[in-house]
């Protein structure tokens, strides 16, 4: 099908879809006139029931805890899948490198890559990172880690939680990459540790869920004493689940970023 005909076909379909959307959305209550029974009920009882002041996290890690476990496993599986996909690429690069003797200088569309990290490092002249970026990056790493840990551990009180804080922690790793060189990233990024963090995050969630069973109730039952609303140690398992999710997310995104960075270096870019 030619490009023009495909676009024309799409436009016809889009008009039809748009009309259906208008009909469907017009049936919803107007924006600002929310009256969902579930949402209104939960916000009335959640603080008294769970002692956590961030109701979004009460929903995420308690009332809908099983869904969040599925969500966490999606992330886990995707990170593993991505690692498998990209490591296969890396294997191909190595093989072709042996065949062609690593002569290529990189940069072309069908470049086969420049071999493994070991041989690429000494040969390749990295483009120097500007001093500003390096200083700003190094200054940012510490605060980012602190902020990440804060967001992960205070999810039950204020906006935040494991998913958000985990992203910030992974971002700290990326700042190291921006500020320095691949060598530095390789040093602060022990891949086995990242993988262990990821596995602990995924396994820990299930383990806390089983803790609910052991306490004589349901899977993911909030079996820890709930504490006083507003304290750091409140909300029972919400804080614990948030922390393991933080581990999982930080691990998964670090893994994803590392794999992409490795690809970039293999395919002929600098730092």
């Amino acid at each position: 099908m030619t490009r023009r005909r495909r676009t024309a076909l799409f436009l016809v379909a889009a008009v039809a879809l748009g009309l259906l959307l208008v009909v469907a959305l017009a049936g919803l209550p107007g924006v600002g006139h929310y009256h969902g029974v579930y949402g209104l009920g939960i916000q009335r009882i959640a603080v008294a029931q769970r002692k956590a002041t961030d109701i979004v996290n009460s929903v995420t890690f308690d009332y809908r805890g099983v869904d969040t476990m599925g969500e966490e496993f999606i992330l886990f599986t995707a990170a593993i899948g991505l690692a498998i996909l990209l490591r296969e690429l890396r294997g191909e690069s190595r093989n072709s490198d042996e065949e062609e003797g690593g002569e290529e200088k990189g940069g072309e569309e069908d470049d086969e890559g420049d071999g493994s990290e070991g041989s690429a490092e000494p040969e390749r002249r990295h483009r120097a990172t500007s001093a500003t970026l390096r200083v700003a990056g190094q200054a940012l790493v510490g605060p980012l880690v602190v902020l990440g840990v804060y967001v992960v551990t205070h999810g039950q009180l204020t906006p935040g939680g494991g998913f958000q804080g985990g992203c910030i922690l992974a971002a700290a790793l990326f700042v190291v990459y921006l500020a320095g060189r691949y060598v530095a990233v390789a040093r602060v990024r022990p891949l086995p540790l990242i993988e262990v963090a990821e596995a602990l995050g995924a396994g820990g969630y299930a383990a806390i869920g089983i803790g609910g069973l052991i306490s004589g109730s349901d899977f993911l039952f909030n079996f820890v004493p709930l504490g006083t609303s507003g304290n750091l140690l409140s909300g029972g398992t919400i804080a614990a689940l948030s922390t393991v999710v933080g581990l999982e997310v930080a691990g998964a995104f670090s893994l994803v970023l590392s794999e992409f960075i490795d690809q970039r270096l293999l395919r002929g870019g600098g730092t």
Partner: protein
Amino acid sequence: MSFLAYAVAAWLFLIGLYGVVTSRHLVHMVLCLGVVQASTYVLLLSIGYRTGAKAPIFADIPTSSRVVDPVVQALTLTDVVVEATVTALLLALVLQAQKRFGTVDPDEIGSLKG
């Protein structure tokens, strides 16, 4: 009664889809898919919105305050996580496609396969 937020969601969905259909670059296509998914965030959040309400976090407001729906916010969180993973996986597939076909133009990949 305002429907502007719903209109934004519908617009994002359609314009993102348009981007996917007319894309000439796989990375561009992945980002357009992200625009399509962004429409679901707008839709979810605007469904849960209540006029004049605060965020559903009672750290410094009384528990009797009028707040927006926390359930759709939690759903949006799930949505964002799924989008991040989908984007990461698709970008990895783009790298694979580039490696295998030597091009990232979806049309050329289609014609190569025959």
